[in-house]
């Protein structure tokens, strides 16, 4: 009874906090200047080079030192399609030449923190490094730019991307928050390794110090190109790998905010302890959890068996119950649920395993297994030794399969051996799989489902799917892309059931209520320039 009462109080508090957040958001407040923002970061920095790294442990402390050519709209970060200029001028350009030519006008008067002027030559040098890295130079997102033919800078304020083919994936790829703009002079003088250990950006904050494993400190850059910003005097990003510490740090006033996200229970605890001193922002998250069958292992070479294990899972009730304890919530197809390219509920329910009638789904699963001679199917689920959401969802999946008469054991491995099994040994039956991206770029993200993709672990070859993807990637008309995406999704999740989606992640960011100006985005990589943030203390 007491437990129920506390829970109710927590939920009321949370509702009030969210409501207060919306209400405050509705009333335009005048930002106050000054103060230091203390952030807790749950991961550490491998290097400072955004072009080669892909961890939020680097983005959260380092992104505020750099600018991007374009970025997601910091005033409307929840929109998956709203991009604005950062170093370019005006609005994001529309393409010419049948969608194959993008001309960016670059801001004048922007300076790097070392005092050097920034021009289109610097941005060209940056994208040359990202898109056409020389042999031996890692570029984590080179594959996002397969459509790019040439990058030219005819003068200091013009930058032209010429594409091989029109692609709706281009602008989201450019807006990726890892595309830090470097100085051409730095790249020419120091080479492509220099930025792994040195920082010279044009972002809202200048680098003060980094104590490895402990914190990164930045201070306000007076010459920042967005007039009047940033509002903060500085920030400190403190490394705190343990979730409990990050949570207590916010509670105990040692930190103001954490940008990755907490599970629901942590949110409720904070709200219960601090009431209206905590504001909670929540959003669907551009990360999805799948399970992938190893097509080289019997009986998973049979599409009927793969369909059956997908049909046995009740995603709708899973969303309802798991979202109370884990960072998953939305049931969706292969595209981020609120994106225009995502399946509508009706379209989604027509895919195997997404129908609302779980009894019918499981009856169909049993029929398929019988037809495939696998009535007593049993297998081992490989899982990653990380609680949220991997182990929670893995355990739930086993219960779901049991209800369809499938016996499953779970083999939980630490990240290193887990990735080794997925990529090198391929010694698993079915594995938990994942895709976590920054800017929502459905076409590029959908490459994950291709047997030929470097991050696909199903070991299958599906030429039909490859052709479908290629055609979709080369299509510029959003309507046509949408229809092609449906066919592609149907083949991946239903007809061939190469992979199965469980749920999309759900991002919960409770923070001190005096932190203003930061709006939650659908990814923990996004909206981290901190130039909008201010403290109402």
């Amino acid at each position, binding site marked *: 009874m007491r437990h129920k009462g506390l829970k109710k109080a927590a939920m009321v508090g949370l509702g009030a906090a969210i409501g207060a957040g919306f209400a405050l958001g509705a009333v335009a407040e005048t930002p106050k200047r000054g103060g230091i923002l203390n952030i807790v970061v749950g991961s550490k920095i491998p290097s400072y080079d955004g072009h080669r790294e*892909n*961890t939020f442990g680097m983005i959260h402390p380092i992104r505020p030192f750099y600018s991007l050519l374009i970025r997601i709209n910091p005033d409307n970060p929840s929109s998956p399609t709203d991009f604005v200029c950062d170093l370019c001028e005006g609005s994001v350009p529309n393409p010419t030449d049948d969608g194959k030519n993008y001309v960016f006008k670059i801001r004048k008067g922007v300076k790097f923190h070392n005092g050097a002027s920034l021009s289109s030559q610097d941005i060209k040098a940056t994208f040359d490094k990202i898109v056409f890295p020389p042999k031996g130079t890692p570029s984590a997102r080179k594959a996002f730019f397969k459509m790019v033919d040439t990058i030219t800078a005819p003068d200091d304020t013009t930058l032209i991307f010429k594409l091989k083919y029109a692609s709706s994936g281009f602008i989201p790829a450019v807006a990726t928050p890892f595309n830090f703009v470097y100085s051409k002079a730095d790249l020419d003088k120091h080479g492509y390794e220099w930025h*792994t250990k040195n920082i010279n950006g044009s972002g809202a904050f200048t680098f003060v110090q980094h104590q490895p494993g402990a914190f990164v400190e930045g201070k306000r850059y007076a010459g920042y190109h967005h007039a009047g910003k940033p509002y903060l005097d500085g920030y400190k990003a403190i490394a705190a790998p343990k979730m409990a510490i990050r949570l207590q740090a916010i*509670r105990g*006033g040692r930190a103001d905010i954490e940008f990755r996200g907490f599970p629901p229970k942590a949110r409720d605890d904070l709200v219960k*302890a601090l009431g209206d001193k905590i504001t909670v922002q929540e959003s669907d998250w551009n990360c999805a959890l799948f399970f992938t069958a190893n097509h080289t292992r019997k009986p998973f070479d049979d599409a009927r068996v793969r369909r059956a294990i997908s049909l046995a899972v009740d995603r709708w009730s899973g969303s309802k119950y798991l979202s109370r304890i884990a960072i998953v919530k939305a049931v969706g197809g292969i595209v981020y649920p609120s994106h225009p390219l995502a399946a509508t509920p009706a379209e989604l329910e027509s895919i195997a395993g997404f129908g609302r009638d779980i009894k019918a789904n499981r009856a169909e699963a049993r029929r398929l297994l019988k037809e495939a001679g696998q009535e007593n199917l049993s297998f081992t689920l490989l899982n990653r030794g990380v609680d949220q959401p991997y182990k929670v969802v893995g355990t739930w999946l086993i219960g779901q399969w049991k209800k369809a008469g499938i016996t499953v054991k779970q083999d939980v491995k*630490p990240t290193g051996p887990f990735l*080794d099994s997925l990529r090198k*040994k391929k010694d698993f039956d079915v594995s938990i*799989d994942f895709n976590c991206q920054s800017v929502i770029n459905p076409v590029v993200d959908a490459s994950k489902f291709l047997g030929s993709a470097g991050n696909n672990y199903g070991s299958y070859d599906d030429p039909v799917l490859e052709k479908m993807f290629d055609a979709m990637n080369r299509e510029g008309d959003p309507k046509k892309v949408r229809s092609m995406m449906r066919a592609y999704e149907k083949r991946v999740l239903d007809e061939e059931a190469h992979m199965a989606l469980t749920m999309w992640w759900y991002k919960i960011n409770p923070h001190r209520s005096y932190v203003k100006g930061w709006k939650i985005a659908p990814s923990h990589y996004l909206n981290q320039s901190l130039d909008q943030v201010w403290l109402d203390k």
Partner: protein
Amino acid sequence: MYKYIITRLLLAVPTLLGAALLVFILLRAVPGDICEIKLGGTGLYVDPAEIKLCQDKVGLNDPMHVQFYDFVTSYLTFDLGESMWTGRPISYEIGLRFQLSLQVAIMATLVAILIAIPLGTISAIRQNTWIDYFVRTFAIAGIAIPSFFLGIMIILGLLIATQAWFGEPWMPPIEYVSPLEDPLANMSQLIWPAVATGYRYSAVATRMTRSALLEVLREDYVRTARAKGLMEKIIINRHALKNAMLPVVTIITLEFAFLMGGLVVTEQVFNLNGLGNLFVESVLNHDFTMTQQLVMLVVLIFVITNLVTDVLYAWLDPRIRYS
């Protein structure tokens, strides 16, 4: 004595070599490598060529004997190499954390000594009285309660108590400040892990002090001292306690060595950027170069601590002479 110390130091060389070989083999027996984790840990597309490039760069594709040779010869050149994960010099990464770990180890040891020796002595002198029962319960509780649990309880207790008393919850700082820079901030951060660790550490030492002292108090020379009419205080302090200290010193010094690299959980609970945390991260990231050097550092600390313990024996018990 000097000869003995030099001999012991020379004997440390094969010990270190054996440890080096063992850690080198064990690390490579674990599946997975740092490049897979670094480049593909978030599920991003990874070009196999880039993984190979990364492996070449960090030396994972070098033949095993070359990797081992590089590892061992790093000591001859006084260059411990670079972390595979951060690319920064290992000596720099370890140096940053060593000060914190050393300070916590010293503070925890002091807490343990300050608790263990008086309580163990009182408990032995007042054997089978309520004081003895209380001390024994206190000591058993210290052994039974894991220090990480105590650490969590301390943090939660501070948060709840300060919110109740002052209206705003307070917790210890989560970033290290050097004692030379701000002694107060430094103490307000490190006193809690020192207490959490020192309590468990003191529990073992208290029980050892008690049993060693009880044994010594039954010795003939103590009976003789009493027969001579010496004051009990002098008998305990000058004759009994000093002789009872041999096993206690062993426990305290070995525990100190363990704390230098083994404070993993306590460091995580209090967010201390120490050697223990670095150890865990290096193992999880498959950062071979860093893990190898950390293991060797801990082995070296144990070797030195054991030597110091043996020298202390001779000081405590004049009958012990090394040659």
